[in-house]
Protein backbone atom coordinates (compact mmCIF):
# COMPACT_ATOMS: atom_id res chain seq x y z
CA UNK A 1 0.00 0.00 0.00
CA UNK A 2 1.29 3.46 -0.89
CA UNK A 3 2.08 5.78 2.03
CA UNK A 4 0.36 9.17 2.44
CA UNK A 5 3.70 10.93 3.00
CA UNK A 6 7.38 10.08 3.20
CA UNK A 7 9.08 9.80 6.57
CA UNK A 8 12.70 10.53 7.50
CA UNK A 9 13.75 6.91 6.95
CA UNK A 10 12.18 6.86 3.48
CA UNK A 11 14.08 10.01 2.54
CA UNK A 12 17.35 8.55 3.75
CA UNK A 13 16.70 5.37 1.78
CA UNK A 14 16.06 7.50 -1.30
CA UNK A 15 19.35 9.37 -0.75
CA UNK A 16 21.33 6.15 -0.58
CA UNK A 17 19.15 4.27 -3.04
CA UNK A 18 19.76 6.66 -5.92
CA UNK A 19 23.49 5.87 -5.74
CA UNK A 20 22.73 2.17 -5.78
CA UNK A 21 20.39 2.64 -8.79
CA UNK A 22 23.09 4.57 -10.59
CA UNK A 23 25.77 2.03 -9.72
CA UNK A 24 23.81 -0.93 -11.10
CA UNK A 25 22.58 0.86 -14.25
CA UNK A 26 23.97 0.01 -17.67
CA UNK A 27 25.89 3.03 -18.85
CA UNK A 28 26.62 4.81 -22.10
CA UNK A 29 29.24 7.47 -22.68
CA UNK A 30 27.93 10.97 -21.92
CA UNK A 31 29.30 12.52 -25.11
CA UNK A 32 27.76 9.71 -27.14
CA UNK A 33 24.30 10.48 -25.74
CA UNK A 34 24.84 14.22 -26.24
CA UNK A 35 25.81 13.67 -29.89
CA UNK A 36 23.04 11.15 -30.52
CA UNK A 37 20.59 13.83 -29.39
CA UNK A 38 22.24 16.39 -31.70
CA UNK A 39 22.11 14.02 -34.68
CA UNK A 40 18.47 13.16 -33.94
CA UNK A 41 17.60 16.87 -33.81
CA UNK A 42 19.47 17.39 -37.07
CA UNK A 43 17.44 14.62 -38.73
CA UNK A 44 14.19 15.96 -37.28
CA UNK A 45 15.06 19.40 -38.69
CA UNK A 46 15.29 17.81 -42.15
CA UNK A 47 11.87 16.21 -41.65
CA UNK A 48 10.06 19.08 -39.91
CA UNK A 49 11.77 22.06 -41.52
CA UNK A 50 13.26 24.02 -38.62
CA UNK A 51 14.61 23.75 -35.09
CA UNK A 52 11.45 24.66 -33.11
CA UNK A 53 9.35 22.11 -35.00
CA UNK A 54 12.10 19.50 -34.66
CA UNK A 55 12.26 20.08 -30.89
CA UNK A 56 8.48 19.93 -30.64
CA UNK A 57 8.48 16.58 -32.43
CA UNK A 58 11.34 15.38 -30.21
CA UNK A 59 9.39 16.43 -27.12
CA UNK A 60 6.39 14.43 -28.34
CA UNK A 61 8.65 11.44 -28.94
CA UNK A 62 9.93 11.88 -25.39
CA UNK A 63 6.37 11.83 -24.05
CA UNK A 64 5.74 8.53 -25.84
CA UNK A 65 9.07 7.13 -24.65
CA UNK A 66 8.70 8.16 -21.01
CA UNK A 67 6.38 5.31 -20.11
CA UNK A 68 9.07 2.76 -20.98
CA UNK A 69 11.56 4.60 -18.82
CA UNK A 70 9.36 4.57 -15.72
CA UNK A 71 7.95 1.10 -16.31
CA UNK A 72 11.20 -0.58 -15.19
CA UNK A 73 11.98 2.00 -12.55
CA UNK A 74 8.67 2.10 -10.68
CA UNK A 75 9.02 -1.38 -9.24
CA UNK A 76 12.44 -0.61 -7.81
CA UNK A 77 11.50 2.67 -6.18
CA UNK A 78 8.21 1.78 -4.49
CA UNK A 79 9.75 2.53 -1.06
CA UNK A 80 10.27 6.19 -1.93
CA UNK A 81 6.72 6.80 -3.15
CA UNK A 82 3.98 8.64 -1.30
CA UNK A 83 0.74 10.32 -2.27
CA UNK A 84 1.75 13.82 -1.17
CA UNK A 85 2.75 15.86 -4.24
CA UNK A 86 5.56 17.66 -2.42
CA UNK A 87 7.21 14.29 -1.75
CA UNK A 88 7.64 13.83 -5.48
CA UNK A 89 10.72 16.07 -5.15
CA UNK A 90 12.44 13.03 -3.64
CA UNK A 91 11.47 10.92 -6.64
CA UNK A 92 12.51 13.58 -9.18
CA UNK A 93 15.89 13.96 -7.48
CA UNK A 94 16.48 10.21 -7.34
CA UNK A 95 15.32 9.70 -10.93
CA UNK A 96 17.52 12.49 -12.26
CA UNK A 97 20.57 11.09 -10.50
CA UNK A 98 19.95 7.47 -11.38
CA UNK A 99 19.51 8.25 -15.09
CA UNK A 100 22.06 11.00 -15.60
CA UNK A 101 24.51 10.48 -12.73
CA UNK A 102 24.07 14.19 -12.07
CA UNK A 103 22.96 15.83 -8.81
CA UNK A 104 20.19 18.40 -8.97
CA UNK A 105 21.61 21.59 -7.45
CA UNK A 106 18.32 22.94 -6.16
CA UNK A 107 14.81 21.49 -6.02
CA UNK A 108 11.72 22.74 -4.26
CA UNK A 109 7.95 22.37 -4.18
CA UNK A 110 5.51 25.29 -4.19
CA UNK A 111 1.76 25.12 -3.70
CA UNK A 112 1.32 28.72 -4.86
CA UNK A 113 0.87 30.16 -7.37
CA UNK A 114 -1.46 27.39 -8.50
CA UNK A 115 -1.18 24.86 -9.94
CA UNK A 116 1.22 23.33 -7.42
CA UNK A 117 4.60 22.75 -8.96
CA UNK A 118 8.13 21.43 -8.47
CA UNK A 119 11.12 23.45 -9.72
CA UNK A 120 14.59 21.97 -10.20
CA UNK A 121 17.83 23.56 -11.35
CA UNK A 122 21.10 22.09 -12.49
CA UNK A 123 24.64 23.34 -12.55
CA UNK A 124 25.59 22.04 -15.97
CA UNK A 125 23.61 20.26 -18.62
CA UNK A 126 24.62 17.03 -20.35
CA UNK A 127 22.18 17.65 -23.20
CA UNK A 128 23.57 21.02 -24.31
CA UNK A 129 27.22 20.38 -23.37
CA UNK A 130 29.49 21.43 -26.23
CA UNK A 131 26.60 22.73 -28.31
CA UNK A 132 27.34 26.45 -28.04
CA UNK A 133 30.62 26.04 -29.87
CA UNK A 134 29.22 23.51 -32.35
CA UNK A 135 29.31 25.16 -35.76
CA UNK A 136 27.44 22.34 -37.49
CA UNK A 137 24.11 23.34 -35.95
CA UNK A 138 23.21 26.82 -34.73
CA UNK A 139 21.19 26.77 -31.52
CA UNK A 140 20.50 30.07 -29.81
CA UNK A 141 17.62 32.26 -28.66
CA UNK A 142 16.75 33.17 -32.25
CA UNK A 143 16.80 29.68 -33.78
CA UNK A 144 15.04 28.10 -30.78
CA UNK A 145 12.06 30.40 -31.21
CA UNK A 146 9.88 31.55 -28.31
CA UNK A 147 8.46 28.24 -27.08
CA UNK A 148 11.03 25.47 -27.26
CA UNK A 149 14.29 24.82 -25.44
CA UNK A 150 17.03 22.37 -26.40
CA UNK A 151 16.35 20.09 -23.43
CA UNK A 152 12.63 19.83 -24.07
CA UNK A 153 12.91 16.24 -25.24
CA UNK A 154 13.94 15.44 -21.65
CA UNK A 155 10.88 17.40 -20.44
CA UNK A 156 8.75 15.07 -22.53
CA UNK A 157 10.40 11.92 -21.19
CA UNK A 158 10.11 13.04 -17.57
CA UNK A 159 6.57 14.34 -18.04
CA UNK A 160 5.36 10.94 -19.22
CA UNK A 161 7.37 9.16 -16.55
CA UNK A 162 6.05 11.39 -13.77
CA UNK A 163 2.48 11.13 -15.09
CA UNK A 164 2.76 7.36 -14.95
CA UNK A 165 3.95 7.64 -11.37
CA UNK A 166 1.17 10.04 -10.39
CA UNK A 167 -1.40 7.69 -11.92
CA UNK A 168 0.15 4.76 -10.08
CA UNK A 169 -0.15 6.72 -6.83
CA UNK A 170 -3.77 7.59 -7.70
CA UNK A 171 -3.02 11.31 -7.33
CA UNK A 172 -5.73 13.00 -9.47
CA UNK A 173 -3.36 15.32 -11.35
CA UNK A 174 -2.21 15.98 -14.89
CA UNK A 175 1.54 16.57 -15.11
CA UNK A 176 3.09 19.09 -17.49
CA UNK A 177 6.88 19.61 -17.56
CA UNK A 178 8.81 22.30 -19.39
CA UNK A 179 12.44 23.33 -19.50
CA UNK A 180 12.00 26.95 -18.46
CA UNK A 181 15.64 28.03 -18.56
CA UNK A 182 18.21 26.76 -21.02
CA UNK A 183 21.93 27.48 -21.38
CA UNK A 184 21.49 27.45 -25.17
CA UNK A 185 19.03 30.32 -24.83
CA UNK A 186 21.58 32.31 -22.83
CA UNK A 187 20.36 31.44 -19.34
CA UNK A 188 22.95 30.76 -16.65
CA UNK A 189 21.61 27.32 -15.81
CA UNK A 190 18.98 24.83 -16.95
CA UNK A 191 15.71 24.84 -15.01
CA UNK A 192 12.74 22.52 -15.28
CA UNK A 193 9.27 22.98 -13.80
CA UNK A 194 6.70 20.23 -13.32
CA UNK A 195 3.15 21.60 -12.91
CA UNK A 196 0.42 19.43 -11.42
CA UNK A 197 -3.00 20.42 -12.78
CA UNK A 198 -6.16 19.06 -11.13
CA UNK A 199 -7.71 16.30 -13.19
CA UNK A 200 -11.19 17.15 -14.45
CA UNK A 201 -13.85 14.94 -12.84
Amino acid sequence: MVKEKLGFADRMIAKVGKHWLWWRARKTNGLLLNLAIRETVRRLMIIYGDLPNALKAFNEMGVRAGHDLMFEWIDTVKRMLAKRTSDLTVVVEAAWYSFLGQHIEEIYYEAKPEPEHIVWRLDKCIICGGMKSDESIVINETTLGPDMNYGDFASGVFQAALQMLVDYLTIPKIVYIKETKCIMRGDQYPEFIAWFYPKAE
Partner: protein
Amino acid sequence: MEFWTRPAQGELSRLELIDMKVHNTLFTTFYVQIVSLMKEKYGVEGAKDALREIGEGVATTMWKYRKPKAQSLKPMIEEIVEFSFYYSVEFRDLDVGLVIVDKNCPICWEGVVEKDIPYCCIIDGFLEKYVSTASDEGYPIPRIQSRAVKSKATGDPHCEHLITIL
Protein backbone atom coordinates in the same frame (compact mmCIF):
# COMPACT_ATOMS: atom_id res chain seq x y z
CA MET B 1 28.79 33.94 -3.98
CA GLU B 2 25.25 32.61 -4.18
CA PHE B 3 25.22 29.77 -6.71
CA TRP B 4 22.47 31.19 -8.89
CA THR B 5 23.88 34.72 -9.02
CA ARG B 6 27.51 33.90 -9.77
CA PRO B 7 28.76 34.49 -13.34
CA ALA B 8 27.43 32.13 -16.00
CA GLN B 9 28.79 28.62 -15.74
CA GLY B 10 29.15 28.31 -19.48
CA GLU B 11 28.45 24.99 -21.03
CA LEU B 12 29.75 21.60 -20.09
CA SER B 13 32.64 20.94 -22.47
CA ARG B 14 32.92 17.90 -24.70
CA LEU B 15 36.19 17.01 -22.99
CA GLU B 16 34.23 16.78 -19.74
CA LEU B 17 31.41 14.87 -21.41
CA ILE B 18 33.71 12.21 -22.88
CA ASP B 19 34.60 11.15 -19.35
CA MET B 20 31.00 11.11 -18.12
CA LYS B 21 28.56 8.24 -18.08
CA VAL B 22 24.78 8.28 -18.42
CA HIS B 23 22.11 5.61 -17.99
CA ASN B 24 21.84 3.61 -21.20
CA THR B 25 18.04 3.55 -20.98
CA LEU B 26 17.79 7.25 -21.83
CA PHE B 27 18.87 6.62 -25.38
CA THR B 28 17.15 3.29 -25.90
CA THR B 29 13.75 4.63 -24.83
CA PHE B 30 13.67 7.38 -27.43
CA TYR B 31 15.43 5.28 -30.08
CA VAL B 32 12.23 3.21 -30.38
CA GLN B 33 10.44 6.37 -31.43
CA ILE B 34 13.19 7.39 -33.85
CA VAL B 35 13.08 4.02 -35.63
CA SER B 36 9.32 4.22 -35.93
CA LEU B 37 9.44 7.77 -37.35
CA MET B 38 12.22 6.94 -39.83
CA LYS B 39 10.23 3.96 -41.15
CA GLU B 40 7.15 6.13 -41.55
CA LYS B 41 9.04 8.91 -43.36
CA TYR B 42 11.59 6.98 -45.44
CA GLY B 43 10.40 3.38 -45.72
CA VAL B 44 12.46 0.40 -44.56
CA GLU B 45 15.59 0.92 -46.69
CA GLY B 46 15.60 4.69 -46.22
CA ALA B 47 15.19 4.26 -42.48
CA LYS B 48 18.25 2.01 -42.30
CA ASP B 49 20.30 4.67 -44.12
CA ALA B 50 18.97 7.47 -41.91
CA LEU B 51 19.74 5.53 -38.71
CA ARG B 52 23.24 4.70 -39.91
CA GLU B 53 23.74 8.39 -40.72
CA ILE B 54 22.84 9.31 -37.13
CA GLY B 55 25.51 6.85 -35.96
CA GLU B 56 28.03 8.31 -38.43
CA GLY B 57 27.34 11.84 -37.21
CA VAL B 58 28.00 10.77 -33.63
CA ALA B 59 31.29 9.08 -34.59
CA THR B 60 32.51 12.05 -36.66
CA THR B 61 32.46 14.36 -33.64
CA MET B 62 33.35 11.77 -31.01
CA TRP B 63 36.51 10.94 -32.98
CA LYS B 64 37.84 14.43 -32.26
CA TYR B 65 37.68 13.84 -28.53
CA ARG B 66 38.59 10.16 -28.16
CA LYS B 67 41.08 8.55 -30.54
CA PRO B 68 41.63 4.83 -30.10
CA LYS B 69 45.06 3.59 -29.05
CA ALA B 70 44.74 0.23 -30.83
CA GLN B 71 46.61 -0.18 -34.10
CA SER B 72 44.75 -3.17 -35.56
CA LEU B 73 41.12 -3.76 -36.45
CA LYS B 74 39.74 -6.12 -33.79
CA PRO B 75 41.36 -4.40 -30.80
CA MET B 76 40.21 -1.06 -32.19
CA ILE B 77 36.58 -2.20 -32.44
CA GLU B 78 36.86 -3.63 -28.94
CA GLU B 79 38.25 -0.34 -27.67
CA ILE B 80 35.54 1.75 -29.34
CA VAL B 81 32.77 -0.45 -27.90
CA GLU B 82 34.46 -0.38 -24.50
CA PHE B 83 34.73 3.40 -24.17
CA SER B 84 31.33 4.05 -25.75
CA PHE B 85 29.18 1.41 -24.09
CA TYR B 86 31.37 -0.10 -21.35
CA TYR B 87 31.20 -3.77 -22.31
CA SER B 88 32.98 -6.28 -24.56
CA VAL B 89 32.06 -8.00 -27.79
CA GLU B 90 33.24 -11.27 -29.35
CA PHE B 91 34.46 -11.87 -32.90
CA ARG B 92 34.19 -14.59 -35.55
CA ASP B 93 36.66 -14.50 -38.43
CA LEU B 94 35.58 -14.73 -42.06
CA ASP B 95 37.61 -14.81 -45.31
CA VAL B 96 36.45 -11.33 -46.29
CA GLY B 97 36.26 -9.72 -42.88
CA LEU B 98 34.78 -10.64 -39.55
CA VAL B 99 31.58 -10.82 -37.57
CA ILE B 100 31.06 -8.93 -34.32
CA VAL B 101 29.01 -11.10 -31.99
CA ASP B 102 27.25 -8.77 -29.58
CA LYS B 103 25.51 -10.49 -26.69
CA ASN B 104 24.97 -7.27 -24.73
CA CYS B 105 23.67 -4.91 -27.40
CA PRO B 106 23.00 -1.51 -25.80
CA ILE B 107 20.24 -0.74 -28.31
CA CYS B 108 18.20 -3.96 -28.39
CA TRP B 109 16.77 -3.80 -24.89
CA GLU B 110 14.54 -6.50 -23.55
CA GLY B 111 10.99 -6.18 -24.79
CA VAL B 112 11.61 -4.22 -27.98
CA VAL B 113 10.37 -5.93 -31.15
CA GLU B 114 11.21 -4.71 -34.63
CA LYS B 115 10.42 -6.96 -37.57
CA ASP B 116 11.50 -4.86 -40.57
CA ILE B 117 14.84 -3.31 -39.67
CA PRO B 118 17.98 -4.73 -38.07
CA TYR B 119 17.23 -2.60 -35.05
CA CYS B 120 20.77 -1.77 -33.98
CA CYS B 121 21.90 -0.61 -37.43
CA ILE B 122 22.71 2.77 -35.86
CA ILE B 123 25.79 1.02 -34.42
CA ASP B 124 26.84 0.09 -37.98
CA GLY B 125 27.11 3.74 -38.94
CA PHE B 126 28.92 4.56 -35.72
CA LEU B 127 31.54 1.79 -35.99
CA GLU B 128 31.97 2.14 -39.74
CA LYS B 129 32.68 5.86 -39.46
CA TYR B 130 34.93 5.56 -36.41
CA VAL B 131 37.13 2.84 -37.92
CA SER B 132 37.17 4.33 -41.41
CA THR B 133 38.16 7.74 -40.01
CA ALA B 134 41.03 6.05 -38.18
CA SER B 135 42.06 4.47 -41.47
CA ASP B 136 41.90 7.84 -43.26
CA GLU B 137 43.97 9.44 -40.49
CA GLY B 138 46.86 7.03 -41.01
CA TYR B 139 46.15 4.16 -38.60
CA PRO B 140 47.40 0.87 -40.15
CA ILE B 141 43.89 -0.53 -40.55
CA PRO B 142 41.51 -0.84 -43.53
CA ARG B 143 38.29 1.05 -44.13
CA ILE B 144 35.29 -1.11 -43.33
CA GLN B 145 31.59 -1.52 -44.00
CA SER B 146 29.43 -2.71 -41.11
CA ARG B 147 25.99 -4.26 -41.51
CA ALA B 148 23.78 -5.68 -38.78
CA VAL B 149 22.84 -9.18 -39.92
CA LYS B 150 21.26 -10.40 -36.70
CA SER B 151 19.44 -8.37 -34.12
CA LYS B 152 17.86 -9.37 -30.82
CA ALA B 153 14.95 -7.04 -31.57
CA THR B 154 14.11 -9.03 -34.70
CA GLY B 155 14.09 -12.28 -32.73
CA ASP B 156 17.71 -13.44 -32.94
CA PRO B 157 19.39 -14.72 -29.77
CA HIS B 158 22.06 -12.02 -30.06
CA CYS B 159 23.15 -9.26 -32.44
CA GLU B 160 25.73 -9.71 -35.17
CA HIS B 161 27.44 -7.11 -37.33
CA LEU B 162 29.15 -8.26 -40.52
CA ILE B 163 32.35 -6.26 -40.98
CA THR B 164 33.49 -6.21 -44.60
CA ILE B 165 37.00 -4.94 -45.27
CA LEU B 166 36.93 -2.49 -48.16
